[in-house]
């Protein structure tokens, strides 16, 4: 006679075997770490789907990178033709970017490449004329996408740093869904994330949000089928003389942000979340974001102030907590 306890143990073992173990991989892509953690399903199939994601993201890097001389972005920026053919992904990204420029009243603009190039690594404060000249090349009329063709005004330079990761994360989430992965956390460079489904035994993915300095924790954000984008004024910075200069440029006045702040945006799309996290920092308030995004939420943090709006599941850390170790020194 087989004892009930024996049957129970066998059934639990079988259940464990079919659920599968959590699988995680980290690849170095787009100049940072892309971590995918998946829970449930057959590990071999899950890992195969994850690796398709990594390959796809690497292909996107070859299109969107400004560091790769052979990228499509650099080809576009060095080509003086007013009209040129572009890849399907470039067309899709630029089409989304155009909509986001309109939605953010121009505070997010991928056509601000002339401005970002002017400020990047500048050792002296650019003159007003240089800023004015670069500013003329941004805005809604800077370029247009017609099918698989890009039309743009002479001199317009594109900069996709503020949106490419979000686009890659969105495509990756879709790729995983199509291959039967329904529970995964995608984390590209800590600044663009997507929580697909939820981990086993939980209702959502829990993410710790770094504070303004980067080595402490503000609190936790919970994601379920949502994207999170985090931008900080001094995420990348340099100094012009004694002045700290952030990497985010306000396209409206052509000048970089110089006051410490952090924005975290939760939305259905990682591409849109990336754009809006920059827009929130540039606007310096949450009202525009809240008015135009009903299914989204955001945080805006400055030294001594904290603001929250909309649908974002955020729990503040009860005490100051220090993230004592990470895989790399923070810049």
């Amino acid at each position: 006679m087989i004892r009930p306890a024996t049957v129970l143990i066998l059934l639990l073992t079988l259940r464990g075997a079919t659920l599968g173990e959590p699988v995680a991989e980290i690849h170095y892509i787009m100049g940072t770490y892309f971590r995918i953690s998946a829970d449930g399903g057959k590990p071999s199939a899950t890992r195969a789907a994850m690796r398709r994601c990594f390959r796809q993201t690497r292909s996107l890097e070859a299109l969107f990178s400004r560091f790769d001389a052979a990228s499509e972005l650099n080809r576009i920026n060095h080509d003086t033709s007013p009209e040129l053919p572009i890849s399907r992904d470039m067309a899709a990204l630029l089409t989304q970017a155009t909509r986001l420029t309109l939605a953010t009243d121009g505070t997010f603009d991928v056509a601000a490449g002339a401005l970002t190039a002017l400020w990047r690594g500048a050792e002296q404060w650019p003159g007003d004329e240089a800023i004015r000249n670069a500013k003329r090349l941004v805005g809604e009329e800077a370029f247009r996408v017609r099918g698989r063709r890009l039309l743009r005004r002479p001199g317009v330079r594109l900069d996709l740093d503020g949106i490419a990761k979000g686009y890659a994360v969105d495509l990756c989430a879709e790729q995983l869904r199509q291959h039967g992965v329904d529970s995964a956390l995608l984390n590209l460079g800590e600044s663009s994330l997507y929580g697909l489904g939820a981990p086993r035994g939980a209702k959502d993915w829990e993410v710790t949000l770094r504070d303004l300095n980067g080595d402490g924790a503000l609190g936790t954000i919970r994601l379920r089928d949502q994207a999170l984008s985090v931008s900080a004024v001094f995420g990348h910075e340099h100094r012009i003389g004694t002045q700290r200069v952030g990497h985010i440029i306000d396209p409206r006045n052509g000048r970089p942000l110089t006051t410490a702040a952090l924005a975290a945006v939760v939305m259905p799309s990682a591409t849109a979340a990336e754009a809006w996290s920059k827009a929130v920092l540039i606007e310096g308030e949450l009202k525009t974001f809240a008015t135009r995004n009903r299914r989204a939420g955001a945080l805006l943090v400055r030294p001594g102030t904290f603001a929250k709006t909309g649908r974002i599941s955020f729990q503040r850390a009860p005490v100051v907590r220090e993230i004592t170790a990470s895989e790399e020194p923070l810049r």
Partner: protein
Amino acid sequence: MRRFVSLLTAFAAAACFMSVLASAADAQEGVFLTEADAPAAAFGNDASFVRQVVAATPELRSAMRQRLGNMEPSVWENEYVAFKATRGDTLLGYAVIVEEIGKHRAITFVVGVRTDGTINDVAVMAYREAYGGEIKAKRFLNQYRGKSGSDALHAPDDVKNIAGATLSVDAASRAVKKAIAVVHAAFGDGAGQ
């Protein structure tokens, strides 16, 4: 029959227990890929791999230094494990395992270097400190007196998922350059130029 079922149950229970231990160990050590898994992460599951060990002779290091220029690795290994990757009769390149120091300790990477010297893929094999680190409570007793005592004394949990401004990753960048230098020095032109 009863004896068979008992043995099977005991085996299954032991397998469950070992699996839990292994998962816990991997999470704490930050192991993502074994050496056996590494080349497929760099070149895909449809490639074939032949393992080789490349001794870091003085000649190899000298050739690597020439290739690396001003970049000084944080780790000089005594040997490099490399996997020759082929698909059919076509040489794809080499998957090389290298280490570079992250914040405090070495991170192990597998770097897939194509025959033209470009990178096919780069994956983290292992961290020596928990990814994302631990969150430890700083006890500012004066500020938090009166708050819940359990919060101030809350035992930290491992944090795996962190969001912040984009992470810069110097160790990975150095690892890539070193791997390219290994391939160039060990396997010459045509496989890492």
